[in-house]
């Protein structure tokens, strides 16, 4: 019989306890905890809508059992920005016209955030590789890549 278990992890900067069913998936835990910014698209690891960051890595919360997050640092789109505190990656996507229906956007932002934290100077090729798991039905990707190149260029130290 499965019983409920308690796990602890840092969610968007706050350490919290969570009661979970042992096999519960991270996306279900996040969404039932009120964080519905993380989207469910395919639920089988192929679309990227559910991407969150765990210890700085972009991972798919729809296939990740929640218990693997125990003791880790989890960041979701709610921990990145909001309408009144827009993150530079979000602003760049808006400015480039890279948001249409917006369903892919939270996952895409989490992939881009993990990439830029690891490498603020990501090359054009790095940008494509690190977004290869984020499907977008609307934009055709060019505007997304333009936006992320703009973030990268703004990261560069100002020339003297």
């Amino acid at each position, binding site marked *: 019989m*499965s019983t409920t*278990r308690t796990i602890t992890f840092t969610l968007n900067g706050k350490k919290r306890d969570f009661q979970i069913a042992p096999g519960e998936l991270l996306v279900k835990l996040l969404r039932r905890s009120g964080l519905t910014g993380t989207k469910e698209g395919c639920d089988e690891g192929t679309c*990227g809508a559910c991407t969150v960051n765990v210890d700085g890595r972009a991972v798919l919360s729809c*296939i990740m059992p929640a218990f693997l997050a125990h003791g880790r640092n989890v960041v979701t789109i709610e921990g990145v920005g909001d309408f009144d505190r827009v993150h530079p990656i979000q602003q760049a996507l808006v400015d480039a016209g890279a948001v249409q229906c917006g369903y892919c956007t939270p996952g895409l932002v989490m992939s881009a955030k993990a990439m830029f934290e690891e490498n603020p100077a990501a090359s054009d090729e790095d940008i494509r590789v690190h977004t290869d798991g984020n499907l977008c039905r609307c934009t055709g990707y060019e505007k997304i890549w333009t936006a992320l190149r703009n973030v990268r260029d703004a990261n560069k130290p100002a020339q003297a």
Partner: protein
Amino acid sequence: MKITDFKIPTRLDEALAALRDLGPAALPVAGATSLVFIPEDQPMTAVDLNRLGLDGIRRDGDAFRIGAATRVAALQKRHEPGWVLDRVALTLSSQQIRNESTLGGNICRVFPWSDFPAALLALGAGLVIRGAQEKEMTADEFFSSQPARLFRGGDLLTHIRVPAVGAGAGFGYKKVRQTATGFSLATAAACLQLDGGGIRSARAALSAAVPFPARCAAVEAALAGKKASEGLLREAALNGLSGLKFKEAEGMSAEYIGRLAAVTLGDALVEAWAQAKEQAS
């Protein structure tokens, strides 16, 4: 997979003891990305392998020693002379899957699309398993059938030894997909060791197109001792696979997949040859 409980050990001996105690109800879990492919049936207790110090890559003489719980992304992002697994890692699914999937998880239970089995067969890797004792086996032994058979008693793969591709040697890896992150229709890996202009030894392996990852003995035999040329490599791939059984896939006949595999293996051999010439001693 129905996970009804979990354990989060922090030492290898603790994990091995938990696996032994649980017996057939134990499920070692590294990246956990395979669970979506395994139908829910038996209740299982997951044993987390991520906190046992089984991750990391280091150079160890003429080889690299890779912890079983090393993420595919770490293989992808390593670049140094002799290291070739970055080329394999980059082709594995999407960045999120590469970030989560481990090398051990990719090979301990082989799926038709698994990328590393063919690469490790071609490279002649060694696999180190820990139970009551430590034992090392060759990739040929490990992949002789589904490796999951080796872990039913509660043993774990702890690390993988991959020879560095050094002077006069080259590695090639190719796969054919319908979409950038899609499953492979044919996967081929090849290693060539040159001796001047001649081929001292060749190793070639296929997966996805065949029922299970396997070496291509007839291709290897047709190359050993010959003078290398692109024509020879492609011909060996085209002629050397006739004894193999190929799978049908997505509306494509087994005959077509066989042809695709031969062309893909030819490409992998040519890539290996190009690197071997570049690294000529």
